[in-house]
């Protein structure tokens, strides 16, 4: 079977970077490093979306998770940085080990389940199926727009209402007044 070397390399590059940076982010000593690593993860995820043909999702991912959210985080970090204690790292309570154990079991069982489903499933396709990239982007946007405005139009409208409510809600939080009244 013919193997697309370039694609393999790209995938492994992105995937390796993603896992590495995710681990780094969790175990980083300083929160800022943690954030930087997380941004790398988000960019790598965008790359994965690109390989999968989801260009639009990738762009949105970069715009939101690559740029907007990190800025918010940076603001929060700046706000707290001088009070930050470097000892706040990760807990080494029993729950660290229990969760490690539990998640390890979960991981192995899911790997097993996915693998068995891949080979045994009647729509075995999972292993044989090749990814079919779209011939033209027009097709994809057509499908997306149909998804948004026909199939899931109700959810879309609800989402818009949700965003409106978030704005209204934030006005009830009374960010500045509240802070002063507490002191």
């Amino acid at each position, binding site marked *: 079977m013919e193997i697309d*070397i370039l694609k*393999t390399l790209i*995938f492994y590059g992105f995937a390796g970077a*993603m*896992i590495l940076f995710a*681990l780094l*982010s*969790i175990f980083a000593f300083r*929160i800022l490093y*943690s*954030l930087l690593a*997380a941004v790398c*993860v988000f960019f790598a*995820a965008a790359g*994965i979306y690109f390989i*999968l*043909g*989801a260009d639009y*999702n990738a762009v*949105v*991912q970069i715009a*939101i*998770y690559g740029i907007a959210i990190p800025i918010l*985080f940076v603001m929060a*970090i700046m*706000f*707290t940085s001088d009070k930050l204690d470097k000892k*706040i*790292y*990760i*807990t080494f309570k029993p*729950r*660290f080990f229990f*969760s*490690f154990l539990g*998640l390890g079991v*979960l991981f192995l069982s899911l*790997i097993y389940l996915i693998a068995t489903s*891949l080979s045994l499933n009647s729509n075995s396709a*999972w*292993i044989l*199926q090749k990814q079919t990239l*779209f011939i033209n982007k027009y097709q*994809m946007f057509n*499908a*997306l727009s149909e*998804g*948004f405005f026909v*199939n*899931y139009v109700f*959810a879309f409208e609800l*989402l818009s209402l*949700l*965003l409106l409510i*978030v704005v209204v809600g934030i006005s009830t*939080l009374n*960010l500045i007044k*509240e802070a002063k009244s*507490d*002191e």
Partner: protein
Amino acid sequence: MNNILNLIFDIGLYHYLFLALILFLIGLFGTIISKNILKVLISVEFMLTAVNINFIAFASFFDNIKLHGFVFSLFYIAIGAVETALALAIFYLMFQAKQSVNTEDYEDGAGERC
């Protein structure tokens, strides 16, 4: 041998699934063990990304006519972003009172509080 090499190097659906699974579990692990509140938030984002990879991978392999997965992932990105922003806003309010980012300072949980 050739078969195994193929399994490893021929990028198929299961590669993406394993990637997403690992990332999801790292995120879950992070939310449980992190002591820093902001790090907990970041870990939640990892879980979100993992879910999105899953959706997009499934959609592009099986569902490339309707693309439900792409749509779902876009919805989820929007919701997740709002959720994060909101969490940071409330974190700001909370931090002003307690001056701590340590999760243990906020831990009462199921215990008794008098």
